[in-house]
């Protein structure tokens, strides 16, 4: 078991290194000299030379990469071009805000998906099953940023019951556990929850049908176990797969929140990325993407490890 866990962690390392290389390469993909993006307009030659050395652009690429990753590991992602503040102090709070939104959305999607999926799995072929299937296909097909706009039209424009933008009163960028903040969280969380809800409903339905067909479930029924005790067995067998999907969805939402965050002006990483792209703030862009991608890799690893702990069949394979 321990050996499997270790091997799995070791296997992640080269991927993490590869991911960091891609993030590093991004800045060199940008059209034009990456330097021109970092140098303020009308800078004197001395300043240019100073920035050049600070960023290490005068050195060969592999050395630049090593320097960059060495500083990044220590938490130094450089300075934002626009705000002149360390990248980490911009990305940090944004990641927390995105995390709040993503966790809320996944929790919502999980509840909805599991409920619908179990209902459909137990009544496979019935009208209930068809309705759930229709809902879950819509969930994975709908452009969630558009759903966000529709929610704004219904709840903010027409009914006027929920705020359309921001995170708290007066454009606050820190989340407080109070009614005002929660009200701001509702619409974006719903908009973002439809994809996980659809995917989870679909897989729960499939797993429940699969488990109900197994011989041991027939045996449980045959020996007279009440339906609700059989249900416990169904849940036990379906849990590892569903939990894994939930983890992966959380990871996808962390990276994919940019569209919903833009619609609702939610001050998270997506919003930060959006601003960085249009102000050509490459250090922020690079830092945010690196942090999000590393989160993605880490969550994937944790899901894998958790799954192998929950489902002993995996490590034998």
């Amino acid at each position, binding site marked *: 078991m321990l050996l499997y866990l270790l091997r799995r962690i070791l296997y992640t390392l*080269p*991927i*993490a290194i*590869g*991911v960091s*290389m*891609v993030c590093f390469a*991004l*800045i060199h*993909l*940008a*059209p034009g000299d990456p330097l021109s993006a970092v140098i303020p307009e009308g800078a004197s030659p001395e300043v240019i030379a100073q920035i050049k050395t600070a960023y290490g652009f005068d050195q060969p690429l592999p050395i630049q990469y090593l320097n960059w990753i060495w500083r990044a590991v220590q938490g130094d992602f450089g300075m934002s071009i626009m705000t002149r503040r360390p990248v980490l102090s911009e990305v940090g709070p944004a990641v927390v805000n995105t995390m709040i939104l993503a966790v809320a959305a996944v929790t919502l999607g999980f509840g909805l998906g599991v409920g619908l999926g179990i209902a459909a799995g137990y009544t496979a072929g019935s009208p209930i099953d068809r309705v759930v299937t229709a809902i879950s*296909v*819509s969930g*994975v*097909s*709908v*452009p969630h*940023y*558009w*759903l966000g*706009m*529709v929610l*704004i*039209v219904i709840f903010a*424009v*027409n009914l006027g019951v929920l705020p359309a933008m921001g995170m708290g009163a007066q454009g606050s960028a820190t989340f407080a556990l109070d009614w005002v903040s929660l009200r701001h969280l509702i619409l974006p969380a719903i908009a973002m929850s439809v994809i996980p809800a659809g995917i989870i409903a679909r897989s729960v339905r499939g797993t429940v049908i699969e488990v109900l067909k197994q011989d041991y479930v027939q045996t449980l029924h045959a020996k007279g176990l009440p339906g609700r005790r059989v249900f416990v067995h169904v849940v036990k067998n379906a849990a590892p797969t569903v939990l894994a999907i939930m983890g992966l969805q959380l*990871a*996808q939402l*962390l*990276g*994919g929140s*940019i*569209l919903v965050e*833009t*619609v609702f002006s939610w001050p998270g990483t997506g919003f930060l*990325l*959006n601003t*960085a*792209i*249009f102000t050509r703030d*490459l250090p922020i*862009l690079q830092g945010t*993407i690196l942090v*999000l*991608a590393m989160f*993605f*890799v880490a969550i*994937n690893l944790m899901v894998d490890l958790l799954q192998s702990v929950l489902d002993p069949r995996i490590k034998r394979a």
Partner: protein
Amino acid sequence: MVATTGGSITSDAPLKGRRPVSRSFWATAWRRLSQDKVALVCGSILLIILLAAIFAPFITPHDPYRTSMARRLLPIGDARHWLGTDELGRDLLTRLIYGGRMSLFMGFAPVVLATLIGGFLGIVAGYCGGAINMLIMRVTDVFYAFPSVLLAVAISGVLGAGLVNSLVSLTLVFTPPIARVAESVTTQIRNQDYVEAARATGASGWRIVFGHVLSNVTGPILIYASSMISVAIVIASGLSFLGLGVSPPNAEWGLMLNTLRQSIYVAPMNAILPGVMIFITSMSMNLISDSLRASMDVKV
């Protein structure tokens, strides 16, 4: 699971007094698909949108680019402009029809490119195995280790807005998963007895790849790719929604959603209209993909 090709699958009950007809795998799949009502309806919807987009100038009397300050944001149901007008007074229905050109192209083109590139890489990796497999699959793993939307936004964001850049970034997003599918199926087939037998009879590597591997890999790849199209439509429109796709005044559903967003309080119905088109196309494509999967009876 591997789809068997070439073998005769006799579906349905044979008619009385007639010899059971044996059909090829593709004929069976096509027969099942053409009897699937959902697939037929969705296919027709997509076909209508596609044909309307291609023959747009013959369908609508309006110019998609002609602005009119006097006719801004007319409501849906206007006598001359059935679906109203946008924030610059352009006919919305016309722009939705024209918008299908760019939006459908951006949904299909990256997936087609990714299927060709990813399929090639996956088959090579699966067939060659060893160091080549390691190299190709580990590089794919790295790109697979990014959340898809983030990777698309990152590359488009760095390269800058534009049709070609979006195409590049989306192709890069969809290539790794397709390569993975192709690689895993190819690896399975490579170890089948009949491939062993073919090799024993002296068949060349090319012959095995084209004769056995390709015919078996095509099914799973097509199904997987078809399920990617709906994702591509949503992400591509998302990129234009962020201002990273085609530039104004082009008609594209995501971009229209972006510019109309400013008018959400004034004309909410007009503002959400382009999203309906994205939703319908992506939903139809998803349902077609499901039917395709059922008709080929393949689990990916």
